[in-house]
Protein backbone atom coordinates (compact mmCIF):
# COMPACT_ATOMS: atom_id res chain seq x y z
CA UNK A 1 0.00 0.00 0.00
CA UNK A 2 1.71 3.14 -1.19
CA UNK A 3 0.46 5.52 1.49
CA UNK A 4 1.81 3.41 4.32
CA UNK A 5 5.25 2.82 2.81
CA UNK A 6 5.59 6.46 1.79
CA UNK A 7 8.60 8.10 3.39
CA UNK A 8 7.34 10.58 5.95
CA UNK A 9 10.28 12.91 5.29
CA UNK A 10 8.86 13.73 1.86
CA UNK A 11 5.59 14.96 3.34
CA UNK A 12 4.81 18.45 4.53
CA UNK A 13 5.81 18.71 8.21
CA UNK A 14 2.24 19.03 9.48
CA UNK A 15 1.12 15.97 7.57
CA UNK A 16 4.19 14.00 8.62
CA UNK A 17 3.54 14.81 12.27
CA UNK A 18 -0.13 13.82 11.98
CA UNK A 19 0.68 10.54 10.22
CA UNK A 20 3.38 9.78 12.78
CA UNK A 21 1.07 10.54 15.73
CA UNK A 22 -1.71 8.36 14.34
CA UNK A 23 0.55 5.47 13.28
CA UNK A 24 -0.08 3.29 16.33
CA UNK A 25 -3.70 4.25 16.99
CA UNK A 26 -5.99 1.23 17.02
CA UNK A 27 -8.24 1.11 13.97
CA UNK A 28 -11.46 0.51 15.84
CA UNK A 29 -14.42 2.85 16.44
CA UNK A 30 -13.78 5.16 19.40
CA UNK A 31 -10.07 4.45 19.60
CA UNK A 32 -8.07 6.71 21.93
CA UNK A 33 -5.71 9.22 20.26
CA UNK A 34 -2.34 10.36 21.62
CA UNK A 35 -3.31 14.06 21.82
CA UNK A 36 -7.05 14.57 21.38
CA UNK A 37 -8.41 18.12 21.06
CA UNK A 38 -12.04 16.96 21.18
CA UNK A 39 -13.36 13.98 23.16
CA UNK A 40 -17.05 13.05 23.12
CA UNK A 41 -18.88 10.42 25.16
CA UNK A 42 -22.39 8.97 24.83
CA UNK A 43 -23.64 11.75 22.58
CA UNK A 44 -27.12 11.00 21.31
CA UNK A 45 -29.91 12.91 19.62
CA UNK A 46 -33.32 11.61 18.75
CA UNK A 47 -35.72 13.10 16.20
CA UNK A 48 -39.10 11.54 16.88
CA UNK A 49 -38.58 7.80 16.62
CA UNK A 50 -35.30 8.15 14.76
CA UNK A 51 -32.03 8.08 16.66
CA UNK A 52 -30.06 10.45 14.42
CA UNK A 53 -26.86 10.34 16.46
CA UNK A 54 -25.73 7.72 18.97
CA UNK A 55 -21.98 8.03 19.42
CA UNK A 56 -20.47 6.05 22.31
CA UNK A 57 -17.01 7.55 22.24
CA UNK A 58 -14.94 9.52 19.76
CA UNK A 59 -11.66 11.41 19.91
CA UNK A 60 -10.28 13.89 17.38
CA UNK A 61 -6.51 14.14 17.09
CA UNK A 62 -4.97 17.61 17.41
CA UNK A 63 -3.16 18.97 14.36
CA UNK A 64 -4.57 16.38 11.96
CA UNK A 65 -7.18 16.49 9.23
CA UNK A 66 -9.96 14.14 10.25
CA UNK A 67 -12.72 13.28 7.80
CA UNK A 68 -16.19 12.35 8.95
CA UNK A 69 -17.82 10.30 6.21
CA UNK A 70 -20.89 8.21 5.81
CA UNK A 71 -23.94 7.74 3.62
CA UNK A 72 -26.76 10.29 3.52
CA UNK A 73 -28.65 10.41 6.78
CA UNK A 74 -25.80 8.90 8.77
CA UNK A 75 -25.96 11.76 11.28
CA UNK A 76 -22.74 13.53 10.35
CA UNK A 77 -24.16 17.04 10.20
CA UNK A 78 -26.30 16.40 13.29
CA UNK A 79 -23.18 15.36 15.20
CA UNK A 80 -21.51 18.56 13.94
CA UNK A 81 -24.44 20.64 15.15
CA UNK A 82 -24.36 18.95 18.54
CA UNK A 83 -20.62 19.32 19.07
CA UNK A 84 -20.67 23.00 18.10
CA UNK A 85 -23.68 23.79 20.30
CA UNK A 86 -26.07 24.59 17.44
CA UNK A 87 -28.30 21.73 18.55
CA UNK A 88 -28.85 20.21 21.99
CA UNK A 89 -28.22 16.49 22.55
CA UNK A 90 -30.51 14.21 24.52
CA UNK A 91 -27.51 12.75 26.30
CA UNK A 92 -23.78 13.22 26.15
CA UNK A 93 -20.70 14.94 27.45
CA UNK A 94 -17.77 16.25 25.48
CA UNK A 95 -14.61 18.16 26.19
CA UNK A 96 -12.67 20.64 24.10
CA UNK A 97 -9.05 20.99 25.19
CA UNK A 98 -10.01 18.96 28.27
CA UNK A 99 -12.68 21.54 29.27
CA UNK A 100 -16.22 20.14 29.47
CA UNK A 101 -18.27 22.11 26.95
CA UNK A 102 -21.60 20.26 26.73
CA UNK A 103 -24.51 22.68 26.96
CA UNK A 104 -22.41 25.77 26.23
CA UNK A 105 -23.87 28.37 23.86
CA UNK A 106 -22.50 28.07 20.32
CA UNK A 107 -20.98 31.54 20.35
CA UNK A 108 -18.99 30.63 23.47
CA UNK A 109 -17.62 27.52 21.78
CA UNK A 110 -16.60 29.65 18.80
CA UNK A 111 -14.79 32.05 21.13
CA UNK A 112 -13.00 29.13 22.75
CA UNK A 113 -11.58 28.23 19.34
CA UNK A 114 -14.07 25.78 17.85
CA UNK A 115 -15.31 27.39 14.65
CA UNK A 116 -17.56 25.77 12.09
CA UNK A 117 -18.81 26.39 8.58
CA UNK A 118 -22.15 25.32 7.16
CA UNK A 119 -23.27 22.87 4.52
CA UNK A 120 -25.32 25.58 2.84
CA UNK A 121 -22.80 28.38 2.60
CA UNK A 122 -23.69 31.31 4.78
CA UNK A 123 -22.06 34.22 3.04
CA UNK A 124 -23.57 37.44 4.38
CA UNK A 125 -24.84 38.49 0.95
CA UNK A 126 -25.55 42.19 1.40
CA UNK A 127 -22.22 42.87 3.09
CA UNK A 128 -18.91 43.33 1.34
CA UNK A 129 -16.28 40.61 1.31
CA UNK A 130 -14.14 42.72 3.64
CA UNK A 131 -16.99 43.25 6.10
CA UNK A 132 -17.60 39.51 6.09
CA UNK A 133 -13.98 39.00 7.04
CA UNK A 134 -13.86 41.72 9.69
CA UNK A 135 -16.91 40.22 11.33
CA UNK A 136 -14.80 37.16 12.04
CA UNK A 137 -12.20 38.99 14.11
CA UNK A 138 -12.69 38.34 17.81
CA UNK A 139 -12.40 40.64 20.80
CA UNK A 140 -13.28 43.84 18.93
CA UNK A 141 -13.89 46.73 21.31
CA UNK A 142 -15.88 48.56 18.63
CA UNK A 143 -18.51 45.84 18.81
CA UNK A 144 -19.54 47.13 22.23
CA UNK A 145 -22.41 49.51 21.78
CA UNK A 146 -20.97 52.20 24.03
CA UNK A 147 -17.60 52.25 22.31
CA UNK A 148 -19.07 51.99 18.82
CA UNK A 149 -19.70 55.75 18.70
CA UNK A 150 -16.11 56.57 19.66
CA UNK A 151 -14.12 55.53 16.58
CA UNK A 152 -10.77 56.50 18.14
CA UNK A 153 -11.19 53.62 20.62
CA UNK A 154 -11.33 50.99 17.88
CA UNK A 155 -9.68 52.45 14.75
CA UNK A 156 -6.25 50.97 15.48
CA UNK A 157 -7.70 47.53 16.10
CA UNK A 158 -9.78 47.84 12.94
CA UNK A 159 -6.66 48.61 10.91
CA UNK A 160 -4.85 45.58 12.32
CA UNK A 161 -7.84 43.36 11.58
CA UNK A 162 -8.11 44.74 8.05
CA UNK A 163 -4.45 43.90 7.44
CA UNK A 164 -4.93 40.37 8.69
CA UNK A 165 -8.07 40.00 6.57
CA UNK A 166 -6.18 41.21 3.48
CA UNK A 167 -3.47 38.67 4.12
CA UNK A 168 -6.01 35.85 4.44
CA UNK A 169 -8.00 37.01 1.40
CA UNK A 170 -4.76 37.09 -0.56
CA UNK A 171 -4.14 33.46 0.29
CA UNK A 172 -7.65 32.55 -0.80
CA UNK A 173 -7.40 34.59 -4.02
CA UNK A 174 -10.22 36.90 -2.99
CA UNK A 175 -8.16 40.05 -2.53
CA UNK A 176 -9.48 41.56 -5.77
CA UNK A 177 -13.05 41.25 -4.45
CA UNK A 178 -12.84 43.06 -1.11
CA UNK A 179 -15.41 45.73 -1.99
CA UNK A 180 -17.84 43.40 -3.77
CA UNK A 181 -20.99 42.19 -2.06
CA UNK A 182 -20.50 38.62 -0.84
CA UNK A 183 -23.75 37.75 -2.60
CA UNK A 184 -22.15 38.51 -5.97
CA UNK A 185 -19.48 35.82 -5.55
CA UNK A 186 -19.71 32.41 -7.20
CA UNK A 187 -20.58 29.36 -5.12
CA UNK A 188 -16.96 28.26 -4.87
CA UNK A 189 -15.76 31.73 -3.93
CA UNK A 190 -18.35 31.84 -1.18
CA UNK A 191 -16.98 28.59 0.21
CA UNK A 192 -13.52 30.14 0.17
CA UNK A 193 -14.82 33.28 1.85
CA UNK A 194 -16.58 31.26 4.53
CA UNK A 195 -13.39 29.34 5.21
CA UNK A 196 -11.28 32.50 5.33
CA UNK A 197 -13.83 34.13 7.63
CA UNK A 198 -13.71 31.15 9.98
CA UNK A 199 -9.92 31.50 10.11
CA UNK A 200 -10.33 35.19 11.00
CA UNK A 201 -11.66 34.02 14.38
CA UNK A 202 -8.29 32.40 15.06
CA UNK A 203 -9.66 28.92 15.75
CA UNK A 204 -7.87 25.90 17.17
CA UNK A 205 -10.16 23.58 15.28
CA UNK A 206 -12.15 24.34 12.15
CA UNK A 207 -15.11 22.14 11.44
CA UNK A 208 -16.05 22.22 7.78
CA UNK A 209 -19.47 20.89 6.82
CA UNK A 210 -19.17 19.59 3.25
CA UNK A 211 -16.60 22.12 2.04
CA UNK A 212 -16.75 20.71 -1.50
CA UNK A 213 -20.51 20.69 -1.98
CA UNK A 214 -21.43 22.72 -5.03
CA UNK A 215 -17.86 23.65 -5.89
CA UNK A 216 -16.74 23.20 -9.49
CA UNK A 217 -13.93 20.68 -10.05
CA UNK A 218 -11.43 23.34 -11.11
CA UNK A 219 -11.73 25.03 -7.72
CA UNK A 220 -11.73 21.76 -5.78
CA UNK A 221 -7.97 21.32 -6.04
CA UNK A 222 -7.26 24.80 -4.72
CA UNK A 223 -9.77 24.28 -1.92
CA UNK A 224 -7.99 21.05 -0.98
CA UNK A 225 -4.71 22.96 -0.93
CA UNK A 226 -6.21 25.52 1.42
CA UNK A 227 -7.43 22.86 3.83
CA UNK A 228 -3.99 21.26 3.86
CA UNK A 229 -2.45 24.66 4.57
CA UNK A 230 -4.74 25.13 7.53
CA UNK A 231 -3.30 21.95 9.05
CA UNK A 232 0.27 22.96 8.22
CA UNK A 233 -0.30 26.09 10.30
CA UNK A 234 -1.20 23.94 13.28
CA UNK A 235 -4.98 24.21 13.16
CA UNK A 236 -6.94 21.00 13.55
CA UNK A 237 -9.46 20.26 10.80
CA UNK A 238 -12.57 18.11 11.08
CA UNK A 239 -14.72 17.91 8.00
CA UNK A 240 -17.81 16.17 6.71
CA UNK A 241 -17.64 14.94 3.15
CA UNK A 242 -19.28 12.64 0.63
CA UNK A 243 -16.62 12.61 -2.04
CA UNK A 244 -14.35 9.63 -1.39
CA UNK A 245 -11.56 10.78 -3.69
CA UNK A 246 -11.22 14.02 -1.83
CA UNK A 247 -11.29 12.29 1.54
CA UNK A 248 -8.57 9.96 0.37
CA UNK A 249 -6.43 12.80 -0.87
CA UNK A 250 -6.31 15.04 2.17
CA UNK A 251 -7.33 13.31 5.36
CA UNK A 252 -4.98 11.86 7.93
CA UNK A 253 -7.70 9.95 9.68
CA UNK A 254 -11.19 8.91 8.67
CA UNK A 255 -14.20 8.29 10.88
CA UNK A 256 -17.14 6.51 9.28
CA UNK A 257 -20.68 6.97 10.49
CA UNK A 258 -23.77 5.01 9.55
CA UNK A 259 -27.22 5.21 11.10
CA UNK A 260 -25.98 7.57 13.80
CA UNK A 261 -23.15 5.37 14.99
CA UNK A 262 -19.44 5.29 14.32
CA UNK A 263 -18.79 2.03 12.51
CA UNK A 264 -15.13 2.34 11.54
CA UNK A 265 -12.04 4.47 12.04
CA UNK A 266 -8.59 4.48 10.56
CA UNK A 267 -6.27 5.98 7.96
CA UNK A 268 -8.04 6.53 4.61
CA UNK A 269 -6.58 3.51 2.82
CA UNK A 270 -7.52 1.07 5.53
CA UNK A 271 -11.01 2.46 6.03
CA UNK A 272 -11.93 2.31 2.37
CA UNK A 273 -11.15 -1.36 2.25
CA UNK A 274 -13.16 -2.12 5.35
CA UNK A 275 -16.01 -4.42 4.26
CA UNK A 276 -18.32 -2.85 6.83
CA UNK A 277 -17.79 0.57 5.30
CA UNK A 278 -18.37 -0.67 1.78
CA UNK A 279 -21.54 -2.35 2.91
CA UNK A 280 -22.78 0.76 4.69
CA UNK A 281 -22.24 2.86 1.58
CA UNK A 282 -23.50 0.39 -1.02
CA UNK A 283 -26.21 -1.06 1.17
CA UNK A 284 -27.81 2.28 1.75
CA UNK A 285 -27.36 3.49 -1.80
CA UNK A 286 -28.64 0.51 -3.73
CA UNK A 287 -31.61 1.51 -5.77
CA UNK A 288 -30.98 5.22 -5.27
CA UNK A 289 -29.80 7.58 -7.96
CA UNK A 290 -26.55 8.29 -6.14
CA UNK A 291 -24.52 5.42 -7.52
CA UNK A 292 -21.53 7.44 -8.66
CA UNK A 293 -19.88 7.52 -5.22
CA UNK A 294 -20.62 3.87 -4.65
CA UNK A 295 -19.07 3.00 -7.99
CA UNK A 296 -15.91 4.97 -7.30
CA UNK A 297 -15.71 3.36 -3.89
CA UNK A 298 -15.78 -0.17 -5.27
CA UNK A 299 -13.29 0.82 -7.94
CA UNK A 300 -10.97 2.14 -5.24
CA UNK A 301 -11.22 -0.96 -3.12
CA UNK A 302 -10.63 -3.24 -6.10
CA UNK A 303 -7.65 -1.19 -7.12
CA UNK A 304 -6.26 -1.57 -3.65
CA UNK A 305 -6.57 -5.32 -3.47
CA UNK A 306 -5.26 -6.20 -6.90
Amino acid sequence: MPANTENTTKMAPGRAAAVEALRDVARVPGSPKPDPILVADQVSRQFGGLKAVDVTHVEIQRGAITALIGPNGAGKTTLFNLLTGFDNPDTGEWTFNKTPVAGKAPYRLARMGMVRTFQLTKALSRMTVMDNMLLGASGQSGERVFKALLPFTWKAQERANTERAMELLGRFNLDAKIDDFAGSLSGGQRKLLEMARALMVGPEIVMLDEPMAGVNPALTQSLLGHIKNIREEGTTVLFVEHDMDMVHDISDWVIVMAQGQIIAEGPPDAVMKDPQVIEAYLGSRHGSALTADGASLTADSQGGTT
Partner: protein
Amino acid sequence: MDIGQVFTLTITQAFGVTALIYLFAAIGLNIQFGYTGLLNFGQVAFVAAGAYAVGVIVLTFDLSLWLSIVVALITSTLLALLLGIPTLRLRADYLAIVTIAASELLRLLVRSIAFKDVFGGAQGLNGKLGQEFHDLNPLPVDFTLPLLSWSRQDLWVVIVGWCLALLFTLFVWGLVRSPWGRVVKGIREDEDAVVSLGKNVFVYKLQALIIGGGIAAFGGILWAVAKQSVQPDTFQPDFTFFVFTILLLGGAARVFGPIVGTVIFWFLLAGFGEVLSSLINNGYIAFLTPTDVGSIRFMLMGLGLMLLMIFRPQGIFGDRRELALDAR
Protein backbone atom coordinates in the same frame (compact mmCIF):
# COMPACT_ATOMS: atom_id res chain seq x y z
CA MET B 1 -58.66 77.05 -5.95
CA ASP B 2 -55.69 78.63 -4.26
CA ILE B 3 -52.62 76.62 -5.32
CA GLY B 4 -50.38 78.65 -3.05
CA GLN B 5 -52.44 77.80 -0.02
CA VAL B 6 -52.63 74.10 -0.92
CA PHE B 7 -48.86 74.00 -1.25
CA THR B 8 -48.30 75.85 2.03
CA LEU B 9 -50.60 73.52 3.95
CA THR B 10 -48.93 70.49 2.38
CA ILE B 11 -45.41 71.63 3.29
CA THR B 12 -46.56 72.49 6.78
CA GLN B 13 -47.72 68.92 7.25
CA ALA B 14 -44.75 67.29 5.52
CA PHE B 15 -42.34 68.87 8.02
CA GLY B 16 -44.79 69.31 10.87
CA VAL B 17 -45.31 67.87 14.31
CA THR B 18 -47.15 64.71 13.24
CA ALA B 19 -44.52 63.96 10.61
CA LEU B 20 -41.85 64.34 13.28
CA ILE B 21 -43.57 61.81 15.54
CA TYR B 22 -43.54 59.29 12.70
CA LEU B 23 -39.97 60.22 11.88
CA PHE B 24 -38.71 59.29 15.36
CA ALA B 25 -40.55 55.98 15.18
CA ALA B 26 -39.07 55.37 11.73
CA ILE B 27 -35.50 56.15 12.81
CA GLY B 28 -35.94 53.63 15.63
CA LEU B 29 -37.47 51.06 13.33
CA ASN B 30 -34.61 51.55 10.88
CA ILE B 31 -32.17 50.28 13.53
CA GLN B 32 -34.45 47.40 14.47
CA PHE B 33 -35.76 46.31 11.10
CA GLY B 34 -33.53 48.01 8.54
CA TYR B 35 -30.18 47.13 10.04
CA THR B 36 -30.80 44.26 12.47
CA GLY B 37 -33.70 42.62 10.64
CA LEU B 38 -36.00 42.51 13.66
CA LEU B 39 -39.64 42.36 12.61
CA ASN B 40 -41.00 44.74 15.21
CA PHE B 41 -44.69 45.19 14.43
CA GLY B 42 -45.35 46.98 17.69
CA GLN B 43 -43.36 50.17 17.28
CA VAL B 44 -46.44 52.14 18.33
CA ALA B 45 -46.09 50.63 21.82
CA PHE B 46 -42.77 52.42 22.27
CA VAL B 47 -44.30 55.70 21.11
CA ALA B 48 -47.21 55.18 23.51
CA ALA B 49 -44.76 54.38 26.32
CA GLY B 50 -43.03 57.71 25.72
CA ALA B 51 -46.27 59.69 25.50
CA TYR B 52 -47.86 58.08 28.55
CA ALA B 53 -44.68 58.47 30.61
CA VAL B 54 -44.96 62.23 30.05
CA GLY B 55 -48.70 62.26 30.65
CA VAL B 56 -48.61 60.24 33.83
CA ILE B 57 -45.57 61.92 35.39
CA VAL B 58 -46.67 65.46 34.55
CA LEU B 59 -50.44 65.27 34.94
CA THR B 60 -51.16 62.33 37.26
CA PHE B 61 -48.21 62.81 39.58
CA ASP B 62 -47.63 66.51 38.93
CA LEU B 63 -43.88 66.15 38.56
CA SER B 64 -41.34 67.71 36.22
CA LEU B 65 -41.38 67.23 32.44
CA TRP B 66 -37.64 66.60 32.46
CA LEU B 67 -38.10 63.74 34.91
CA SER B 68 -40.79 62.32 32.64
CA ILE B 69 -38.31 62.13 29.75
CA VAL B 70 -36.03 59.96 31.90
CA VAL B 71 -39.03 57.84 32.90
CA ALA B 72 -40.04 57.54 29.22
CA LEU B 73 -36.63 56.12 28.32
CA ILE B 74 -36.68 53.71 31.28
CA THR B 75 -40.20 52.58 30.33
CA SER B 76 -39.28 51.97 26.71
CA THR B 77 -36.17 50.04 27.79
CA LEU B 78 -38.25 47.86 30.11
CA LEU B 79 -40.74 47.31 27.32
CA ALA B 80 -37.94 46.24 24.95
CA LEU B 81 -36.60 43.81 27.56
CA LEU B 82 -40.07 42.45 28.22
CA LEU B 83 -40.71 41.87 24.51
CA GLY B 84 -37.20 40.83 23.59
CA ILE B 85 -36.05 38.43 26.28
CA PRO B 86 -38.66 35.75 25.63
CA THR B 87 -38.79 36.12 21.84
CA LEU B 88 -35.38 37.08 20.50
CA ARG B 89 -33.98 33.59 20.98
CA LEU B 90 -36.75 32.25 18.76
CA ARG B 91 -37.36 32.66 15.04
CA ALA B 92 -38.02 36.14 13.66
CA ASP B 93 -41.79 35.63 13.28
CA TYR B 94 -42.28 35.23 17.02
CA LEU B 95 -41.11 38.76 17.71
CA ALA B 96 -43.55 40.01 15.07
CA ILE B 97 -46.49 38.24 16.68
CA VAL B 98 -45.56 39.20 20.23
CA THR B 99 -44.89 42.87 19.42
CA ILE B 100 -48.16 43.43 17.58
CA ALA B 101 -50.07 41.72 20.38
CA ALA B 102 -48.21 43.64 23.06
CA SER B 103 -48.89 46.99 21.42
CA GLU B 104 -52.65 46.30 21.44
CA LEU B 105 -52.44 44.95 24.97
CA LEU B 106 -50.74 48.11 26.12
CA ARG B 107 -53.36 50.30 24.44
CA LEU B 108 -56.23 48.38 26.01
CA LEU B 109 -54.50 48.49 29.37
CA VAL B 110 -54.10 52.28 29.42
CA ARG B 111 -57.68 52.87 28.24
CA SER B 112 -59.18 50.44 30.77
CA ILE B 113 -61.51 51.64 33.52
CA ALA B 114 -59.40 49.90 36.14
CA PHE B 115 -56.48 52.29 35.63
CA LYS B 116 -58.56 55.38 34.88
CA ASP B 117 -57.01 57.26 37.83
CA VAL B 118 -53.52 56.85 36.40
CA PHE B 119 -53.95 56.75 32.62
CA GLY B 120 -57.20 58.59 32.22
CA GLY B 121 -59.16 55.81 30.53
CA ALA B 122 -60.55 56.27 27.02
CA GLN B 123 -60.31 60.07 27.26
CA GLY B 124 -56.59 59.85 27.98
CA LEU B 125 -54.64 62.59 29.68
CA ASN B 126 -55.26 66.14 28.60
CA GLY B 127 -53.91 69.33 30.07
CA LYS B 128 -50.84 71.45 30.49
CA LEU B 129 -48.27 68.92 29.29
CA GLY B 130 -44.81 70.20 28.54
CA GLN B 131 -45.27 73.65 30.04
CA GLU B 132 -41.59 73.70 31.03
CA PHE B 133 -40.68 73.10 27.40
CA HIS B 134 -42.96 75.78 26.01
CA ASP B 135 -41.70 78.26 28.60
CA LEU B 136 -38.29 77.98 26.97
CA ASN B 137 -39.66 79.12 23.61
CA PRO B 138 -37.31 81.91 22.47
CA LEU B 139 -39.54 83.07 19.62
CA PRO B 140 -41.17 86.51 20.00
CA VAL B 141 -44.77 86.34 21.24
CA ASP B 142 -46.34 87.87 18.12
CA PHE B 143 -44.18 85.70 15.81
CA THR B 144 -45.75 84.45 12.57
CA LEU B 145 -44.09 82.76 9.64
CA PRO B 146 -44.43 84.40 6.24
CA LEU B 147 -45.45 81.25 4.35
CA LEU B 148 -45.96 78.28 6.59
CA SER B 149 -48.93 77.98 8.87
CA TRP B 150 -47.30 76.85 12.10
CA SER B 151 -48.27 78.55 15.32
CA ARG B 152 -45.51 79.98 17.49
CA GLN B 153 -45.81 76.98 19.79
CA ASP B 154 -45.73 74.42 16.98
CA LEU B 155 -42.78 76.11 15.34
CA TRP B 156 -40.78 75.78 18.55
CA VAL B 157 -41.64 72.06 18.70
CA VAL B 158 -40.77 71.63 15.02
CA ILE B 159 -37.38 73.35 15.41
CA VAL B 160 -36.38 71.29 18.42
CA GLY B 161 -37.87 68.15 16.86
CA TRP B 162 -35.86 68.46 13.64
CA CYS B 163 -32.65 69.18 15.56
CA LEU B 164 -33.25 66.04 17.60
CA ALA B 165 -34.08 64.05 14.48
CA LEU B 166 -30.83 65.12 12.84
CA LEU B 167 -28.97 64.26 16.04
CA PHE B 168 -30.50 60.78 16.08
CA THR B 169 -29.70 60.34 12.40
CA LEU B 170 -26.09 61.22 13.16
CA PHE B 171 -26.20 58.75 16.04
CA VAL B 172 -27.47 55.98 13.75
CA TRP B 173 -24.84 56.86 11.16
CA GLY B 174 -22.13 56.53 13.79
CA LEU B 175 -23.52 53.24 15.06
CA VAL B 176 -23.97 51.48 11.75
CA ARG B 177 -20.52 52.29 10.40
CA SER B 178 -18.89 50.91 13.54
CA PRO B 179 -18.02 47.25 14.20
CA TRP B 180 -21.26 47.12 16.22
CA GLY B 181 -23.19 48.03 13.08
CA ARG B 182 -21.33 45.34 11.18
CA VAL B 183 -22.46 42.71 13.67
CA VAL B 184 -26.13 43.71 13.53
CA LYS B 185 -26.06 43.79 9.73
CA GLY B 186 -24.56 40.31 9.86
CA ILE B 187 -27.43 39.22 12.09
CA ARG B 188 -29.89 40.55 9.52
CA GLU B 189 -28.17 38.54 6.81
CA ASP B 190 -27.71 35.26 8.68
CA GLU B 191 -27.90 34.85 12.39
CA ASP B 192 -26.25 31.43 12.57
CA ALA B 193 -23.23 32.60 10.62
CA VAL B 194 -22.69 35.40 13.13
CA VAL B 195 -23.10 32.97 16.04
CA SER B 196 -20.52 30.69 14.47
CA LEU B 197 -18.06 33.60 14.54
CA GLY B 198 -18.39 33.92 18.31
CA LYS B 199 -20.86 36.81 18.66
CA ASN B 200 -23.61 36.77 21.24
CA VAL B 201 -26.40 37.48 18.79
CA PHE B 202 -29.12 37.66 21.45
CA VAL B 203 -27.47 40.59 23.22
CA TYR B 204 -27.03 42.53 19.97
CA LYS B 205 -30.68 42.03 19.02
CA LEU B 206 -31.77 43.18 22.45
CA GLN B 207 -29.55 46.26 22.18
CA ALA B 208 -31.04 47.11 18.79
CA LEU B 209 -34.55 46.72 20.15
CA ILE B 210 -33.78 48.95 23.14
CA ILE B 211 -32.07 51.68 21.11
CA GLY B 212 -34.76 51.71 18.43
CA GLY B 213 -37.49 51.71 21.08
CA GLY B 214 -35.82 54.59 22.93
CA ILE B 215 -35.74 56.75 19.81
CA ALA B 216 -39.40 55.91 19.11
CA ALA B 217 -40.24 56.92 22.69
CA PHE B 218 -38.99 60.42 21.81
CA GLY B 219 -41.76 60.48 19.21
CA GLY B 220 -44.21 59.88 22.05
CA ILE B 221 -42.64 62.57 24.23
CA LEU B 222 -42.91 65.01 21.34
CA TRP B 223 -46.53 63.98 20.82
CA ALA B 224 -47.48 64.68 24.43
CA VAL B 225 -45.60 67.97 24.54
CA ALA B 226 -46.82 69.30 21.19
CA LYS B 227 -50.44 68.16 21.26
CA GLN B 228 -50.85 68.55 25.05
CA SER B 229 -52.92 65.43 25.01
CA VAL B 230 -52.31 61.70 25.20
CA GLN B 231 -55.16 59.52 23.97
CA PRO B 232 -55.10 55.73 23.89
CA ASP B 233 -56.90 55.29 20.57
CA THR B 234 -54.32 57.24 18.64
CA PHE B 235 -51.90 54.36 19.30
CA GLN B 236 -53.56 51.82 17.01
CA PRO B 237 -51.56 49.18 15.13
CA ASP B 238 -51.96 51.12 11.86
CA PHE B 239 -49.46 53.64 13.25
CA THR B 240 -46.79 50.93 13.09
CA PHE B 241 -47.74 50.04 9.52
CA PHE B 242 -47.46 53.66 8.42
CA VAL B 243 -44.00 53.70 10.00
CA PHE B 244 -43.07 50.59 8.00
CA THR B 245 -44.44 52.31 4.90
CA ILE B 246 -42.30 55.35 5.58
CA LEU B 247 -39.20 53.22 6.09
CA LEU B 248 -39.72 51.23 2.89
CA LEU B 249 -40.52 54.41 0.99
CA GLY B 250 -37.25 56.05 1.99
CA GLY B 251 -35.26 52.84 1.81
CA ALA B 252 -34.58 50.56 4.79
CA ALA B 253 -31.03 50.37 6.12
CA ARG B 254 -30.24 53.82 4.72
CA VAL B 255 -29.22 56.47 7.22
CA PHE B 256 -31.40 59.14 5.58
CA GLY B 257 -34.16 56.71 4.61
CA PRO B 258 -36.50 57.64 7.49
CA ILE B 259 -36.19 61.39 6.85
CA VAL B 260 -36.81 61.08 3.12
CA GLY B 261 -39.62 58.58 3.69
CA THR B 262 -41.38 60.69 6.29
CA VAL B 263 -41.31 63.89 4.27
CA ILE B 264 -42.50 62.17 1.12
CA PHE B 265 -45.18 60.19 2.94
CA TRP B 266 -46.65 63.26 4.61
CA PHE B 267 -46.15 65.45 1.58
CA LEU B 268 -48.15 63.01 -0.56
CA LEU B 269 -50.77 62.28 2.08
CA ALA B 270 -51.34 65.93 2.89
CA GLY B 271 -51.05 66.91 -0.77
CA PHE B 272 -53.72 64.45 -1.90
CA GLY B 273 -55.95 65.63 0.94
CA GLU B 274 -55.55 69.33 0.30
CA VAL B 275 -55.93 69.05 -3.47
CA LEU B 276 -59.00 66.86 -3.16
CA SER B 277 -60.67 69.07 -0.55
CA SER B 278 -60.08 72.18 -2.56
CA LEU B 279 -61.41 70.48 -5.74
CA ILE B 280 -64.52 69.30 -3.92
CA ASN B 281 -65.10 72.64 -2.22
CA ASN B 282 -64.88 74.44 -5.53
CA GLY B 283 -67.39 72.09 -7.13
CA TYR B 284 -65.02 70.34 -9.56
CA ILE B 285 -65.80 66.90 -8.14
CA ALA B 286 -69.52 66.60 -7.58
CA PHE B 287 -69.85 62.95 -6.52
CA LEU B 288 -67.66 63.31 -3.42
CA THR B 289 -68.13 65.15 -0.17
CA PRO B 290 -65.33 66.68 1.94
CA THR B 291 -65.76 63.89 4.50
CA ASP B 292 -64.63 61.30 1.92
CA VAL B 293 -61.24 62.93 1.55
CA GLY B 294 -59.75 61.31 4.65
CA SER B 295 -60.18 57.80 3.31
CA ILE B 296 -59.57 58.54 -0.36
CA ARG B 297 -56.16 60.04 0.32
CA PHE B 298 -55.15 56.77 1.95
CA MET B 299 -56.38 54.86 -1.09
CA LEU B 300 -54.28 57.06 -3.33
CA MET B 301 -51.36 56.61 -0.95
CA GLY B 302 -51.77 52.83 -1.20
CA LEU B 303 -51.83 53.06 -4.96
CA GLY B 304 -48.68 55.13 -4.88
CA LEU B 305 -47.01 52.56 -2.66
CA MET B 306 -47.93 49.75 -5.01
CA LEU B 307 -46.42 51.66 -7.90
CA LEU B 308 -43.29 52.26 -5.84
CA MET B 309 -42.96 48.57 -5.01
CA ILE B 310 -43.33 47.69 -8.68
CA PHE B 311 -40.99 50.26 -10.15
CA ARG B 312 -38.58 50.98 -7.32
CA PRO B 313 -38.83 48.18 -4.75
CA GLN B 314 -35.68 49.22 -2.93
CA GLY B 315 -37.21 52.56 -1.88
CA ILE B 316 -36.06 56.04 -2.85
CA PHE B 317 -32.61 55.71 -1.32
CA GLY B 318 -32.17 51.96 -1.61
CA ASP B 319 -29.61 50.18 -3.72
CA ARG B 320 -31.13 47.95 -6.36
CA ARG B 321 -27.97 45.83 -6.41
CA GLU B 322 -28.58 44.82 -2.80
CA LEU B 323 -32.17 43.88 -3.49
CA ALA B 324 -31.12 41.64 -6.35
CA LEU B 325 -28.75 39.82 -4.01
CA ASP B 326 -31.47 39.24 -1.50
CA ALA B 327 -33.44 37.13 -3.94
CA ARG B 328 -30.65 34.58 -4.35
